[in-house]
C-alpha cells in the first residue's frame, strides 16, 4: 500500500505519527517529513496507517491507487 502526504495541507497536527509511528515520521517542527511525496506502508502496518490517515483533520494523507 502506498500513501501520499500533501505538502500544503500538512499543518503539523501530528496525529498520523501518533497512531502509526512506524509509518509516519515528524520533523523537528512536528510536520510529516514525507509531505509532498509518497511512501510505501511497511507490511503489517496497514491498519495503523489507515488509522493515522483517518485521524488527520486536514485529510492530507491519501491512498495512492496502484
Amino acid at each position, binding site marked *: 500500500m502506498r500513501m501520499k502526504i*500533501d505538502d*500544503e*495541507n500538512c*499543518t*503539523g*497536527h*501530528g496525529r498520523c*505519527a*501518533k*497512531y502509526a509511528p512506524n509509518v509516519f515520521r*515528524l520533523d*523537528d*517542527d*512536528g510536520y510529516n517529513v514525507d509531505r509532498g511525496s509518497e511512501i510505501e506502508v511497511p507490511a503489517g502496518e496497514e491498519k495503523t496507517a*489507515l*488509522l493515522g490517515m*483517518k*485521524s*488527520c*483533520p*486536514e*485529510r492530507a494523507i*491519501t491512498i495512492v491507487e496502484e
Partner: protein
Amino acid sequence: MNEDAPSAEVFEAPSHDEMIARFGRDLVNDFDLDDPAFNDKFDETLNYMVRKCPVVHSRVGRGYYLINTQDDVRRAAQDWRTFSSAKGYMPNRPEGLPYLMPEESDPPIHTKWRHVLNPHLSPRTVAGYEQPVRDDVNALIDKFIDRAECEFISEFGALLPGWAFFKNILGLPIDDLAMLVNGVEEGTFAPDPEVRGKYFGEVFAYLETHLAWRKTQPSRGDLIDTILAGVTYEGGTESPWAHKVSILVDLTFGGIATTTFVMASAIHHLAMHPDQRQLLLDDPSLIENAIEEYARFFPPVVALGRTCTRDVEVSGTTIPEGEFVMLTYAAASRDPRHMDEPEKIDVRREGIPHSTFGVGPHRCIGSNLARVELTATLEEWLKRIPEFSVKPGTEPTYVTGFLRSMRSLELVW
C-alpha cells in the same frame, strides 16, 4: 489540491416553526452565538445545525455567517485566499483592538511567524515539559485531596494550563495569572463590546510591559527572544513592535483560556459516567485516545472567523465578498457524515477526525502542549482520585460565545 467534489447533498430544510419551538429563534436566518439559549442548548443546537443547516446567518451587529459541516469547514479553513484571516477572527470585533499576529494574518506574513514560533511548541519540545507539568498536576491535587472535595475550575482547571505555559515557555510569574485569566474571560464574554475591548486592553498593556522588560535582559534563547528577534516581511521590512506584542497576546489567549474547558469537561464526564471511567482505570493506555474524544466533543473554541475575499458558494448559499464567516469547529467535529453516533462520547472511538484545534494553516500552535496537559491531568487524577462524583445538589455552569467556558464544577470523593 482538493479531491473532494463540492457537496451534492441536499439538506433537509429545517422548519421555521420547529426552530422557534425548539430554540426560541430561527437559527438559519437569525443566529446569535451570544444568545443564552445557545449556551443552555449547546449540544442540541450543534447537532441540529450540522445535520440540517450547513450555513446560517446572524443579524447581530455587522452580521456574520456560520458554516457548519466538516467538509465545508475544512475546505474554507484550507482556502485562506478566499477566507482571509487578515480582518480578524472575532465577530463584531471591538473597535481599536489591534490585529493579533499570526492568527489574524494570511500567508506570507503568517508563514514567516509560524516558521519561527512552531519549534517552541513542537511535539519534541513539549515532550520535555511532560514531567514538570505532571509535577504541577500533583502539586495542585495535593492542596485539596485530603479535603475530599474541590471546586475544579478555580482550584485546578484554570491554573494548570497557565502554570504550564508561564513556567515552561513564557517565563511569566504565575502570581499574575489570575488577572490575565479574568482579562481574557471578560474580554471574550462581557456582554458589552466596549467592556470586552477594555479588558483586552489591560492584557495588552501587561504583556507589552513584560516584552519591553525582556528586551533589556540577556537573551535566554526562549520563545520570548524569538518574538523579540522578529521576522523579515516580504519586501524586506522588519516586523514592527506592535506585531511582536500582539503575538505574545495571541499566544497567551490561546495558552490560558482554552485547555481548561476540555480538562474540566473530561473530568465532569468521568464523574458522571463510571463505566467510561472504569475503562480508563483498567487500561490507562486508552487515555490519549480519550483525550481526542473529549477534545472533539467539548471544544473550547466554538468557531473562529474569516472574511470572504470574493463571492463564494457554500452548500448552496452564496456568501458575498466582504462578509464575515465563522467556521464552526464545534459543529464540524460532530458531523454524522464522518462518524457514527457523533452525539455519543466513547473513549474507545478510533480515528477521530475532529477540528477542535482548527484546520488549515492556522491550526492551534499549542495543540501539542494542550495534549501534554490533558494527558498528565487524566493520568495523575485517576491514579490519585479514582472514584469521584459531582457534589450532590450542584451542576456545572457554562458561558458561551465564540468560545465556551465552564465557570464552576463542584466535585466530591
